[in-house]
């Protein structure tokens, strides 16, 4: 049996300055190395997209200007994205898009950018920019990344985070939790990009998508020596 998954890269032009396309590359390669065909579809502002028909949705971080255009565009896709999330479609949204998957992002200047409310979370712009190496503990083991955000996100009580912060800030300067998790939708502030150095997390996304599409989850193990070495450098590095 041949397997193929579709990865939808949302806003690759508008949200592109933090190397987040490395996440899409990582998903593709880790599928390819296991004989799974990866079909990547780029979707920009205003372009048609049916989230229920894709296997994995990815969107990254960008500049404020990009975020405004993306925020408007996302509004038109709210219902489709919420339905897909309830149906279990795998999604990974990083930084700027993570913020817009919450209810709202209030900028430092007081502008309110409405989010799609997939996560029960609000983000408030702050004069304190949270920058540095991060280590978090998750159900997939320790994960590492680099955070760089002035928006501080607060999850509602009971809303699941992606992990607990061991080093760095995470969602905000006080709560010691990082990211959000709702069904198979994962939100995070971790750049680096997040997937290459956290292969267990990358494989969780692929495995979940494979289970949905083909009812198989047994992913062939890969040699992750280099991935682990790169992660260890971040764990040992100062914040």
């Amino acid at each position, binding site marked *: 049996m041949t397997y193929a998954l579709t990865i939808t890269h949302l806003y690759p*032009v*508008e949200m*592109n*300055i*933090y*190397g*987040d*396309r*490395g996440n899409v*590359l*990582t998903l593709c*390669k880790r599928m390819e190395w296991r004989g799974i065909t990866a079909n990547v579809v780029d979707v*920009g*502002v205003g372009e048609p997209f049916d989230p229920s028909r894709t296997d994995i949705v990815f969107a990254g971080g960008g*500049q*404020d*200007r*990009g975020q*405004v*255009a993306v925020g408007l565009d996302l509004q038109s896709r709210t219902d489709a994205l919420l339905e897909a999330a309830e149906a279990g479609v795998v999604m990974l949204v990083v930084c700027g898009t993570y913020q817009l998957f919450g209810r709202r992002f209030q900028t430092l200047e007081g502008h309110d950018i409405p989010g799609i409310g997939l996560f029960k979370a609000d983000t408030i712009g702050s004069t304190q*920019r949270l*920058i*540095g*190496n991060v280590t978090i503990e998750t159900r997939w083991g320790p994960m590492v990344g*680099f955070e*760089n955000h002035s928006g501080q996100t607060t999850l509602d009580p009971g809303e699941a985070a992606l992990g607990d912060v061991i080093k760095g800030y995470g969602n905000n300067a006080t709560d010691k939790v990082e990211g959000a998790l709702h069904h198979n939708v994962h939100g995070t502030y971790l*750049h*680096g*990009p997040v997937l*290459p*150095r956290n292969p267990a997390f990358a494989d969780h996304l692929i495995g979940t998508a494979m289970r949905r599409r083909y009812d198989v989850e047994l992913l062939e193990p890969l040699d992750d020596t*280099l*991935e682990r*070495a*790169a992660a*260890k*450098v971040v764990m040992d*590095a100062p914040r």
Partner: protein
Amino acid sequence: MLLPRVAPTSDRSRGTRAVVANGVGKAVLNLRRLTRGGGSALPGLVAERIDPRMVSRLVAQLPEGVIVVTGTNGKTTTTKMIVAVLEAQGKTVLTNRSGSNLSRGVASAILERSAWRGRLLEDIAVFEVDEASMPAVCEQLRPSTVVVNNLFRDQLDRYGELDTTAAVIGRAIAGLDGSATVCLNADDPLVASLARYGDRPDIRWFGVDAEGVERLDHDAASDSDHCPQCGHALDYTKAYYSHLGHYRCPDGHVERPTPELSLTSFESIDVHDGASRLTVDVEGDSISIVLPLPGLYNAYNALAAMCAMRSRGVALHDATDALSHVTAPFGRVEHVDVHGRGLRIILVKNPAGFNQIIQTFLGHPKGTRLMLAINDGLADGRDLSWLWDVAIEDIAPCEFVLCTGGRAADMALRFKYAGAEADVVPDMVEGIAELLRRTPEGEEAEVLANYTAMLELRALLDSQATLKRFWQ
């Protein structure tokens, strides 16, 4: 440095204090030179503390004023080119050659060249200035010419977003004297958007109109390819590298300005030592230049320099001879012989620059021996996410790839996901030793390094003691 800040005094005593302040700064400079060398920001810091207006007074004495060069990539090279042309015109030029480009570094350069009594003897000054320091430096130096070459993402953890950087430079431009000239790269949409700051009649545009300039297949380093006004993706009829090219907003908000200085042909004539043949058109006149530097990025630097010179009334025919003798600044492209192996050492700092190096040196299959030295020091930017936006896939198959430095594993991981193998030797002494072992005598290897890795590498290669250790 624990110097007490001297309270402002009356105008009557100010002249005396300027002389004292200058003396103090000079003494510190000489001491640093005697003891350790370097230290180019310290005297500026001391002098600024004593009389913040001293630098302004000193540069106001320059009969031909100040030229300031800023932008992400190519500041040092462009500055060097402008200085070369001016010196060829018989002018004496004050500059910050060391690449010390924060406001303190600029103040240091001014102090260093001022005589004890607080006078500058040069005709003109040319400074490269860090983007974030532009408002302070322009306020202090009142430049009559400002050059902005490009704006690429660089060290987002230190400088924040690119749009913020543009706004900071815009503020500096808005505060310039009305008579000042601003030279802008028409091919960079974000740089071009700077024209709207202030009521500025004298904007000079430069750009590239050459045919057949290739773009890397995996160039993903387009940082500003959407309309600065409405945010829509720009339409490109020509795309050179990163977001440089001929663009237009689909809703008509912005369009690439027609440059008065246009590169109409670009030909790489010696990739090994690095030379290109340029044809530059200006007002119906066509000028041919052999630039002893490689790559389209250096052609842009030359255009920026020529644009600045033209705004100063220098005939471009007079500038070509100086440009044909200009050399690359520290670390940009250097050839070093180590135990009979020729190492070409090249600085890489951001995706746009790295991609230009790939395009210029690594795109053609020739069994390259390649080492990458990557650190995550403060001066590098501690976030190395950008490596994932470098077109590693466009590097032709190499004989081997070695990664060294604190972030060697990250670099090697990027190669792995580009489908190429790379070996990791984090310790730089061992990394160089391995490179020399794998490179036969009489052969050559390429070494790409980011900033602190470059400093570390040079220190190791300059030290005879460590050179011996490579063979242990």
